[in-house]
């Protein structure tokens, strides 16, 4: 059984935010109005996290890192869910089952990475946007929690395609939208347990670090940076 993980090379990342846009479109993540966004109801499965600012206004230079669900090996969110709406799959992906979720938001409170988002509003998009919906991903109703699932629907499709072609699932078959779209190829994705995969090699890089290592959640999203942040 594979153990999927991601490596983000911050030295290659030019903070363009293409991954954020791709994620939002791929997963039908709700676009909320400015008023609601100001109230902290903006929805992102992947966001650019501001970690540092250099200079002063107006020549300010923020340093952002792409931040998504860390797909922990010891997830803290699954432990508090009273209805098992969030759980860790055998392949390591922490999934969220939307019809099962009751919207208590315990998981959101317990996630140290604030990776989960709550649907405050009914998804009412302009008609033009509805035509762009990805039919492989459900549109979540109001009142439930959602999160990055490493584009689990893509895994299903990749498995289907591999099976129809009578071959095993290969590394390039399954790749999340953010990793696919990254123009500087800063996001690597693959099986951490497969010694031949690129991510398995990169996690031994000297630049490697994970977010909030001291909590013991064992994230499967690794960052590479020459600077120690």
């Amino acid at each position, binding site marked *: 059984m594979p153990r999927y993980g991601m490596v983000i090379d911050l030295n290659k990342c030019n903070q363009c935010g293409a991954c954020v846009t791709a994620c939002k479109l791929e997963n039908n993540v709700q676009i909320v109005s400015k008023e609601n966004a100001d109230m902290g109801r903006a929805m992102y499965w992947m966001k650019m996290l501001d970690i540092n600012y250099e200079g002063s206004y107006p020549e300010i230079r923020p340093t952002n890192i792409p931040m998504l669900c860390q797909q922990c090996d010891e997830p803290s969110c699954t432990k508090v869910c009273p209805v098992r709406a969030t759980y860790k799959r055998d392949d390591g992906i922490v999934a969220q089952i*939307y019809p099962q979720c009751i919207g208590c938001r315990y998981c959101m409170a317990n996630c140290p990475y604030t990776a989960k988002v709550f649907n405050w509003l009914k998804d009412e998009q302009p008609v033009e946007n509805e035509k762009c919906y990805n039919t492989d991903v459900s549109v979540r109703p109001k009142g439930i929690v959602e999160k990055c699932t490493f584009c689990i629907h893509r895994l299903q499709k990749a498995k289907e395609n591999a099976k129809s072609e009578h071959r095993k699932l290969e590394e390039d078959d399954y790749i999340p939208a953010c990793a696919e779209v990254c123009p500087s190829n800063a996001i690597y994705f693959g099986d951490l347990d497969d010694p031949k995969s690129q991510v398995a090699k990169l996690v031994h890089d000297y630049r490697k670090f994970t977010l909030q290592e001291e909590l013991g959640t064992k994230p499967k999203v690794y960052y590479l940076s020459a600077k120690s942040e």
Partner: protein
Amino acid sequence: MKNKILISAFLFIGMAVGYYYFYNTTGNVKHLDPISFSHYVHTKQHKIKCQVCHRGVETQMRAGIPNIDVCSMCHSSIIDSTSKKEFVIYSYVKDNKTIPWKALYNIPDYVYFSHRRHVKMGKLECSDCHGDMTTQTSPELQNFTPFKMQFCFDCHESRGVSTDCGNCHH
């Protein structure tokens, strides 16, 4: 008290009339489709396979309900002048109008169900979920099996297929 009896009598009569019209005595079941489509005529008499009309069944997520583009492959002119049904379908084809079929099998949008995965890879027969459609002379009124998650679970467990939630709900 008298009012209550009257109301219940009216309700009863209403239900009886409704039942009569729904399952009327001639045996012709009332359905909501614009044409009383017979699977029996197409599959048994004319030996057309399911995949010919339900084109996506082996290749796509949805099997698809055929419309005039498929119907017109055979019904581009009147074949049987005595058939009223064929005249109706021919008029749709001639006017290039979409036939407003009523979909009976609707899967909720929070469930991902792929026909390709089940039919092509799982080697399931259409009749496993839809019943034997080759004997149906008019459109069905209700699903062959109630589409509950337990139905999916039973089949997955008996065949040793994964029952991981994330495989169908994403």
